[in-house]
């Protein structure tokens, strides 16, 4: 290994983004919008609908042109089952998970995929999860303070 300065000759791994959703059409549209603005285009975006009916399909419809979108339905309830469905539908070398109530930074795919090319022993890469504007409510403020799943250390810049 000679460092990350010369990644050009390596074959690029393909990335399948898997999103599990249920009854959150507005949030899903916001997420898909952020995926359409990625600096690195994913191989495919698989939306696994876990029981929202037609709402998920109509939320995703406007992105059919801007994203390599696939919508599948998993009738077995529960997140693990829905995510497993996404894994089995995925054709990319890498499977990227993001939640439907999240928004991806424009370089999200690019940054999450990059470490895999550097070290074949890496099996999983995780990123930072930031809190959106908590709004006015106390419970929301509490969630932003206490339950944000920030993965990095306090104060570390990414």
């Amino acid at each position, binding site marked *: 290994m000679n*460092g*990350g300065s010369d990644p050009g000759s390596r074959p690029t791994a393909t*990335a399948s983004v898997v999103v599990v959703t249920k*009854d*959150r059409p507005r*949030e899903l549209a916001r997420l898909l919008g952020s995926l359409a603005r990625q600096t690195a285009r994913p191989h495919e975006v698989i939306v696994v609908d876990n029981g929202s009916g037609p709402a998920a399909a109509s939320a995703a419809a406007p992105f059919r042109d801007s994203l390599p979108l696939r919508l599948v339905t998993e009738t*077995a309830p529960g997140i*693990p*089952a829905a*995510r497993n469905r996404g*894994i089995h539908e995925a054709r990319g*070398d*890498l*499977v*990227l*998970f*993001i*939640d*439907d*109530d*999240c*928004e991806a*930074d424009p*370089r*999200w795919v690019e*940054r*999450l*995929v990059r*470490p895999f090319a*550097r*070290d074949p*022993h*890496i*099996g999983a*890469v*995780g*990123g930072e*999860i*930031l*809190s959106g504007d*908590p*709004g006015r409510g*106390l419970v*929301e*403020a*509490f*969630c*932003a*303070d*206490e*339950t944000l*799943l920030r*993965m*990095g*250390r*306090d*104060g*570390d*810049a*990414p």
Partner: protein
Amino acid sequence: MIIDITKSGYRKGYLPREGVGVFHPFFATANAAFRRDALLEVGGFDPRCATGEDIDLSIRIAASGRELWFEPSARVTHHHRSTLRGLLRQWFGYGLGHAYLFRKHSPRRRLELYRYDLSAANPSPFGIRRVASLPSPVHGMVFLSSYHGMHAGAALAAGAFLGGWTAAGWLLTAGAAACAAWYFGIRFDPRRPARSVALSGIRWIADAAYVLGGLLGGLREGVLYLEATRTRRRPRQGSGRHPDAGPGASDGSRRTAAAARGPSRVGRASGGSVTASGGSVTAPGRRPSWPSPRGGILAPLQGFAGRNRPRRPGV
């Protein structure tokens, strides 16, 4: 388990592949990528996990001999939409799910005691130390925390007074008061006293839901499982935002670089190194060594409110 339903304390780079006892590095599926062949090899997610399926998966990926890499520059913004009822259900669910993970990933017949230790000398990303791992007819985990301390202390004090042990009663009362002062006081913001009190109240009942979920989940799994959240200082600026979060990140930038950044981690155990700032990785060696207590059970924790697991309208 875990604990801290919050910040994990990872640094950019390889994460330790073993945990401290039941607390294991993991990636939340709100923002994580996996090699597809690795997912297929370990069998994907465990459908029995009500929550924490991402924790369970990370443990199994690491156990399969693969590395976990934390890449903080891959950012996702999570939008909270919580009602109190939804919050309590969610935290209760975390407790339930973590109890299952504990039973699944820990060896039998030990009583594990943990506590938080945020000192610089503790290398655990979770800030956790194992206090003891004792042979015991009861298999379980107890987290020593101010939250449990104030309740246990108050209950024991009441018993002591009722039993006529006045001196012991006062001693226990003092202990309970000290725990309560720590639990509630460390997060107090003198600039916004009313808000601080309200947030402490929410925290207190959310912790109750979490602990109760763990106890009941443990009962279901046949283990003693008493978890706790970490008593942490109030996040800077009270927003929980990352200093680089962009507009609105506000005062994060005022902090000095020294305060904002811990010691940079260079020189991994086996020779690889990660630069402090740029993230170029040279010669990834096999893996970092992390002085973890022996035994290695694992299984950790966490999740965050607002994640879409207990999917309910309005949560």
